[in-house]
């Protein structure tokens, strides 16, 4: 551990490149494909999905609406058409299944900029960091909802960088790139994982869904952990790992914290294959099954 060349070196040697990067690759593919699907229409006239991340229509039939936005609309005391409500229910159901902040790590384009900033920080050993509470995002989430209630308008949407960047990519960027650049620089220079991990109220909202969502990462073979710390270093929300990885035998190895984005970097980076995707409530059982399996195999 002490003379380790680089983060993820162990995994690379033990598991090979693909096994130590596969979730990262899938994730980037997911982010880019969702964007590509939105761009197929305006660029090539193929309308698989129309609209943008705020609300859209798949094949002119299935509506999708961001539930966080819909809640704000309701708070402005506007009663939306059923299309938007149905769309929000579908999206909510999806993220309840696959994990709330899957939105952040598998769909949101800002994630690519902030991941890049975090990677650069690790690469150049930049440790300067403004001290921010990770709970700030929940205050901001409350603030955005209060703003909708008080002003009667979607005030947050006037500055929301997440939707602004997506809308920019699909409908024309304008000065939207400056927003993305600002977030990148904030994360790169000022605060490690500053935007996605501390401030973004969109992520805060989806983390609330993540508290009950079905698919979770589980430290299923935690007794194999060799304390290399790689997972803590690459994880965008390292505080979520400890209770699952370092818990006692009675505690579940499942990462239950809603802040976990299900990005799967810990799964990739662990040379001992401690982590794997599983279901929220099957953690304990899986752990035993896994132990059993290993005994059988060895």
């Amino acid at each position, binding site marked *: 551990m002490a003379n380790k060349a680089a983060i993820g070196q162990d995994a690379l040697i033990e598991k090979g490149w693909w096994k130590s990067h596969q979730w990262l690759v899938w994730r980037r593919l997911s982010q880019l494909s969702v964007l590509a699907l939105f761009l197929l229409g305006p660029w090539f006239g193929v309308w698989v999905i129309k609209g943008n991340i705020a609300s859209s229509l798949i094949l002119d039939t299935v509506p999708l609406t961001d539930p966080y936005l819909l809640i704000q609309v309701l708070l402005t005391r*506007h009663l939306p058409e059923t299309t938007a409500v149905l769309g929000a229910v579908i999206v909510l159901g999806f993220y309840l299944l696959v994990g709330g902040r899957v939105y952040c790590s598998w769909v949101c384009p800002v994630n690519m900029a902030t991941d890049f900033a975090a990677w650069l920080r690790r690469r150049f050993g930049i440790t300067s960091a403004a001290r921010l509470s990770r709970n700030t995002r929940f205050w901001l989430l409350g603030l955005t909802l209060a703003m909708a209630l008080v*002003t009667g308008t979607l005030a947050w949407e*006037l500055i929301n960088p997440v939707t602004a960047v997506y809308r920019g990519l699909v409908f024309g960027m304008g*000065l939207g790139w400056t927003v993305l650049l600002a977030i990148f620089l904030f994360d790169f220079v000022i605060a490690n994982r500053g935007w996605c991990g501390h401030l973004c109220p969109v992520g805060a909202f989806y983390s609330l869904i993540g508290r009950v969502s079905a698919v979770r990462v589980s430290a299923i073979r935690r007794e194999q952990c060799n304390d290399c710390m790689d997972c803590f270093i690459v994880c965008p929300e390292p505080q979520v790992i400890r209770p699952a990885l370092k818990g006692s035998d009675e505690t579940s190895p499942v990462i239950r914290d809603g802040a976990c984005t299900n990005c799967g970097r810990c799964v990739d980076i662990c040379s001992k294959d401690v982590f794997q995707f599983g279901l929220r409530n099957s953690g304990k059982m899986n752990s035993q099954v896994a132990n059993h399996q290993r005994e059988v195999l060895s």
Partner: protein
Amino acid sequence: MSVKQSGSSRGVTRRQFLAGTVGAACAAGLAGLGLVSYTRQASALPAYAIRPPGALAESDFLGACVRCGLCVRDCPYDTLRLAKPGEDVALGTPYFIAREIPCEMCEDIPCVVACPTGALDHSLTDIDKSRMGLAVVVDQETCIAFRGLRCEVCFNVCPARGKAITLEMQHNARSGKHARFIPIVHSTDCTGCGKCERACILEEAAIKIFPLHLAKGIQGEHYRLGWQEKDKAGQSLVTPDVEHKYNLPEGMGYDYEGQGLIIEEQAAETPYPDDPLETLNRGKDRI
């Protein structure tokens, strides 16, 4: 970085927790203050930006529109666009600029149908009833119709031709013998589609679409128009109607229909007939 860094089980003292919480709350509050004032400023819709048909009143619209752009996508004429960062219009909201691409007033109103939230009111099914704005002849100095030249382009391109814009014939005082055909906009029929502004032949349009609140006056609640009240009641509501009488010189009449003073036939002759006896016989009743 080491495992020890995060310390024992709960490495946060009460003081740290309070400081952290208060810090986060203050940061959020500060952001809120900034956002409130920014909201005011950013929600003001510039006059050139026209909302799509069926858009709710601006303050409601900004609460209902999720900025998804489905209306933009379903507009067959690429009229609509979403406000980009750096533009004056509230970020991400749909609008159009009449002078660039006006609304073609599709009968099936696809933009309204596409709206998932009802920010574009789905109860609007007749495009003629939409009120995106109101055409206003803003500059009578450059509009060539006011100079006595024949143009009438706005009148002719209007989808509600002859209703939303009519031509009023006036006397051309400059030449003294020609007419002027002045375009008059009627808010009863104008949808604010902007085709007149698009078509105006001037370098800068003399007829422009304005948001209704800028274009329309509103008369006081208490205001009553006497002739309307009279029609409603069937009689004058003030003092009994006095029959109007002209007080004109002897032998003269008045015709309202543009002819003004007329000299009555009999009076056209001299008051002193050829036969002086007649004058004498008329006697006192004349004076």
